[in-house]
């Protein structure tokens, strides 16, 4: 079991000044799978990746990548990993080829092999035509692809992708997903952080939800949905000013251990609230309560949870902050 874990971290803690970025993070990723690390901005996702990729020493805790101790043998870990940071870390003054050849040379490939690998990757990432142009002339999507290509030069066993699709349009995002799937198909293991629940759902075999430097859930996408409860109740008051009342009433019918929050399902208009419920009796309780409070609604629906709702239920979103 243990040798099957290509990433294993125990009790990682890291503090920056007054911010506890990691507050006892445990992570595990099985070989040949995609682990999605999901969390809002500032949850500690990037810090965790930087620790695993040997860029940052944790204050406490242990981590192993490909079976190697990250703290004791960082140099050996670096032979096994590829990292694509949150902002594309390609060199803008260098051409696509020059960027990749440089990485190849730093990985001890001969000049010729580095060149061959660069051409191969550029073709694969559909950058052959732009290969001889400085990277500063590339579009955002092209830079991301070049950046990802750079992290694959050494054919790493473990690939860390820190928000690989942030800022990309939906079509480019799906291209990137294709690349990740291809890597996994060819035997790599991928740990990716994302703010997009849709992305984690589409790519990840398992999902770790991180908030305030802690792992608050680790499960398969389906398992997470099941864990939070069968169904979700969504209510949209006719008058948005009544949202606080709706939230209060929804809390009463919430499934144990969950709380109502503003509905942020992708594509839906703001102004609705939702709550996980354990059975449809919740609907029977809610309708009279809404009537008694004189809250008129334009939408009231019971449906299976999306990952959004799972996530928000788990992170216990602070409602007051969002209402202000």
């Amino acid at each position, binding site marked *: 079991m243990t040798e099957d874990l290509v990433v294993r971290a125990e009790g990682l803690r890291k503090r920056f000044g007054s911010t506890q970025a990691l507050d006892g993070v445990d992570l595990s990723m099985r070989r040949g799978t995609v682990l999605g690390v999901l969390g809002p901005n500032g949850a500690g996702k990037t810090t965790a990746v930087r620790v695993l990729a040997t860029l940052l020493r944790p204050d406490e805790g242990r981590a192993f990548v490909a079976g190697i101790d990250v703290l004791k043998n960082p140099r050996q870990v670096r032979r096994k990993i590829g990292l694509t940071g949150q902002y594309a*870390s390609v060199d803008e003054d260098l051409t696509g080829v020059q960027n990749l050849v440089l990485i190849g*040379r*730093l990985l001890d490939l001969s000049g010729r092999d580095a060149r061959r690998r660069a051409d191969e990757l550029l073709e694969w990432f559909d950058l052959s035509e732009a290969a001889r142009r400085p990277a500063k002339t590339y579009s955002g999507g092209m830079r991301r692809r070049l950046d990802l290509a750079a992290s694959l030069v050494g054919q790493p066993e473990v690939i860390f992708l820190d928000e690989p699709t942030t800022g990309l349009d939906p079509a480019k995002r799906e291209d990137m997903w294709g690349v990740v799937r291809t890597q996994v198909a060819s035997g790599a293991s991928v740990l990716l952080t994302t703010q997009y629940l849709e992305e984690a759902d589409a790519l990840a075999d398992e999902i770790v939800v991180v908030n305030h430097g802690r792992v608050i859930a680790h499960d398969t996408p389906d398992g997470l949905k099941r864990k939070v409860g069968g169904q979700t109740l969504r209510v949209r008051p006719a008058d948005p000013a009544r949202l606080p009342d709706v939230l209060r009433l929804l809390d009463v019918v919430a499934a144990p251990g969950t709380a109502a929050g503003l509905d942020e399902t992708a594509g839906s208009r703001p102004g609705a609230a939702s709550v996980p419920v354990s059975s449809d009796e919740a609907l029977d309780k809610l309708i009279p309560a809404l009537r008694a409070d004189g809250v008129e609604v334009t939408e009231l629906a019971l449906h299976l949870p999306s990952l959004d709702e799972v996530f928000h239920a788990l992170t216990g979103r602070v409602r007051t902050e969002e209402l202000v």
Partner: protein
Amino acid sequence: MTAIAMHSAALAKRSLIKTMRTPEALIDVTIQPVIFLLLFTYLFGGAISGDRHEYLQLLLPGMLAQSLAMGGVALGQNLNADIEKGVFDRFRSLPISRAAPLVGAVCADVVRYLSVCVSLLLFGTIMGFRVETGFLPALGAVALSIGFGLCFCWISVWVGMMVRTSGAVQGIMFLLVLPLTFGSPVFVPTDTLPGWLQAFVAVNPITPLVKAIRGLLVGGPVAGPLGTTLLWMAGLLVVFVPLALRAYSRRA
């Protein structure tokens, strides 16, 4: 050991490509020293020395020292910008020595220091400067200037690792370089200076450097100031290379 040399060479090549692609970044090591040379020779030369040619003979070796001390400022700024952009994150996730990116960047800076020497000597000659010693001592002066630049720039590298913005690197480095280069025999004979300033000139590392370069280009004692300069260079390396490397490793 060979690995770090190869990695540094690959990274030095990267810096050189960047330099080639942005020739305007060479202004501070080509046009700027020449402008200083013109300014001081024609504006102050007569007043300070009475004779412009005589002043130029003293000024040009000093200008070499000053321009080399300033030449490293851009390096710290560039490295700082690289770190901010995340380019160095990639290098740090590779199985290479932590020193390689810094050593590579410093090595590539030789091109800039050579530019300083070539433009000053070329324009100086057009303005009437004459080497009074010989080819080999002149070559020695160029080598010493570049060597000093390579040691002095580690201060800039260290500052580049420590501060948050590349603008701050420039601010801090100018705060250091301007007193060092003006509080020295670069521009004026120091015997008219007040005593406390003369004391500063006496311990200033730029002072023996200027004297050594003058000796090598226009004649005068060389051995003494050269020895002191080499000691300073060794001292700069011993102190600032480890500081820079440590700051680089620590920078998250």
